[in-house]
């Protein structure tokens, strides 16, 4: 299969996914009654952002300012390649697929930091501090949470992890790991209630304070697409991926991902916004020990019921 | 035509090592010195992997060694940065030419 075609396909599907997440977010905020508004608002915002002037703040580090949204999108597009949409439907399947996924998302975080730092404003810098603090805290629990499925499937390959869940989804006997993964996913994409690096009128948008127009749009797309990817990876790791009775694999995968994204977005709205130092203590004092307990539990379960891993 | 052999990789590694030495010896900010040390470390790891590939590709000991080296590099960086933070809080600067208290 030619590489160009795959790249084009990935970019298009990411755009559609980002749009889907934007619609979902508005649906959870406005309720099902405003379905039309939820479908149309993201499109209207896109048009509005495209018509907006592309401002570069005075004294900005232009190279980083211009490159940040592109780097973010590129790293997300690369990460999207390893997600198995169906039995034979994926970009490529390296033996260290899951590891690759986490590795490739590293530059995304660097891009967010560059975005905040390059704009030469206290708001952006302060937002960057919050984003970086947030990053340091979620990465370790996220790493430990995905170890559970890897231990059970005895493989880092995403396809193998899905196949290993034919009998039983991992969420059934690794609920703690899934919970940690879900919280870390909300952390990583700055979703509520962890949206402090971006929200709050005191920072006027935080990391993205000075971004306008098309670049801001790119960041919105990147963040939404990243959220979709993380929920999709959550489905792969804990909900059996594309497996399901009757319907073809990709449809099952999509249904599961949308359902999981809805639950995450909707659930996050019912907690007050968490302050950054509370995010840190949540990550280090609760999530990290909990993820270690999860690893130990999974290990014990695998030893006690050797048949489960099939 | 064969691909690049062992020697080109080793030359790259030697160049990286030289740059690292320049950085360690000349940089004024302690964080920059730490970053230069990382370059030296990476030059060494590149050496290890090149030797593994071209001399003993059937023996994976070199990769294990490289992984441990990367780990040690990260630990060194974390401890070093913690130290720098402490120094910065106490002195308000991490410039090595201003931290001369241990000098005779």
């Amino acid at each position, binding site marked *: 299969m030619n590489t160009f075609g795959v790249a084009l396909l990935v970019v298009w599907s990411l755009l559609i996914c980002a749009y889907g997440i934007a619609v979902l977010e508005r649906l959870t905020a406005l309720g099902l009654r405003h379905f039309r508004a939820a479908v149309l608002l993201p499109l209207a915002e896109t048009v509005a952002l495209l018509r907006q002037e592309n401002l570069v*703040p005075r004294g900005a580090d232009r190279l*980083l300012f211009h490159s940040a949204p592109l780097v973010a999108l590129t790293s997300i597009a690369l990460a999207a390649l390893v997600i198995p949409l169906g039995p034979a439907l994926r970009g490529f399947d390296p033996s*260290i697929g899951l590891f690759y996924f*986490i590795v490739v998302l*590293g530059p995304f975080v*660097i891009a967010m*930091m560059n975005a905040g*730092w390059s*704009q*030469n*404003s206290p708001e952006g*810098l302060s937002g960057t*501090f919050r984003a*970086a603090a947030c990053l*340091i805290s979620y*990465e370790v629990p996220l790493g430990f949470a995905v170890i559970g499925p890897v231990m059970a499937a005895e493989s880092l390959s995403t396809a193998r992890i899905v196949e290993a869940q034919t009998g039983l989804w991992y969420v059934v006997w690794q609920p703690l790991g899934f919970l940690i993964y879900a919280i870390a996913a909300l952390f990583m994409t700055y979703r509520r209630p962890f949206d402090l690096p971006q929200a709050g009128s005191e920072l006027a948008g935080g990391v993205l304070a000075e971004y306008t127009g098309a670049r801001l749009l790119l960041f919105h797309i990147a963040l939404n697409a990243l959220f979709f990817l993380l929920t999709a990876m959550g489905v792969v790791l804990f909900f059996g991926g594309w497996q399901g009775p009757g319907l073809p694999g990709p449809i099952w995968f999509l249904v599961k991902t949308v359902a999981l994204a809805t639950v995450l977005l909707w659930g996050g709205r019912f907690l007050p916004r968490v302050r950054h130092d509370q995010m840190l203590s949540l990550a280090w004092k609760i999530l990290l020990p909990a993820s270690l307990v999860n690893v130990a539990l999974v290990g014990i379960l695998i030893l006690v019921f050797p048949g489960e891993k099939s | *035509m064969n*691909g*690049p052999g*062992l*020697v*080109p990789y080793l*030359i*790259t590694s*030697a*160049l*990286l090592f*030289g*740059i690292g*030495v*320049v950085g360690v*010896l*000349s*940089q*004024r900010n302690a*964080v920059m010195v730490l*970053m230069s040390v990382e370059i030296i470390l*990476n030059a060494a*790891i590149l050496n290890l992997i090149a030797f593994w*590939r*071209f*001399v003993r590709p059937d023996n*994976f*000991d070199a*990769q294990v060694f*490289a992984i*441990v080296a*990367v*780990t*040690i*590099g*990260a*630990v*060194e*960086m974390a*401890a070093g940065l*913690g130290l720098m*933070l402490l120094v*910065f809080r106490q002195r308000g600067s991490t410039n090595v*030419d201003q931290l001369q208290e241990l000098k005779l």
Partner: protein
Amino acid sequence: MSGLIEWILFLALSVLAVGMAASMLVTMSMYRAGLALMSSFVALAGLFILLNADLLAAIQVMMNVGGMLVMVLFMVMLMMDPGGEMMWDMKRKMHMPGPGALSMTMPRGAPPSGKERQHHQMMVDMAMSTAQLPWALALGAASALVLIVLVVRTPWPFSSVQPTQDATGAVGTLLLSRYMLGFEGAAFLILAGIAGAVIFARRERAPTSRPAAATAASGTKIFTCPMHEEVRQSGPGQCPLCGMDLTPATEASVHHGEGGGSA
């Protein structure tokens, strides 16, 4: 054919790795220096992939880009780089010639007197490298040269075997069998590193950092407001007019000329 492509990739990646490492020393902003280091690491990871060490490439990117570099950038932002293009702006305003940090070298000789002194002091403050830069350059070049000569002249025992085994599995098996001790040792080292970093970075609340006025506050002193001289009371508290903390009367009158200088 594949050999040619391999050569092209190798040259591009090694030029990138070496060039980025060099530009780390040349750029003026420490934040950008950190990013240059990251690019060098990523190019190195590319070289690892060329050498069939995919696992190590992934580890390289994750450890260095995902973990370490974030620490570096965080540190840099925390310490001095205020964000944006400030250093370039300064350079432009001061009309300094030369590329990047090479123009901001440590001035030599004793500080001049008179009008030049301020400029000299500013150069000292802004310099990215110490006065030993020429020595360092010479030493670096010499060591690289010696290494290259040694590398070229040594007859290396080549092996034409292609690595076939899955490196991930082999390395994992080795780590948990023959090198178990080293593996655990590295884990222990990380633990020690975490503990050390936490102890280093912990903020010490030394008693000396408190303002002397607060520790010296006893009931007998007369306190006054820095803003309102007419406010006088016999203990610490807040000014009824503006709400500022009261300061001891004697110190306040001493420091009055400096305008709100803390004791």
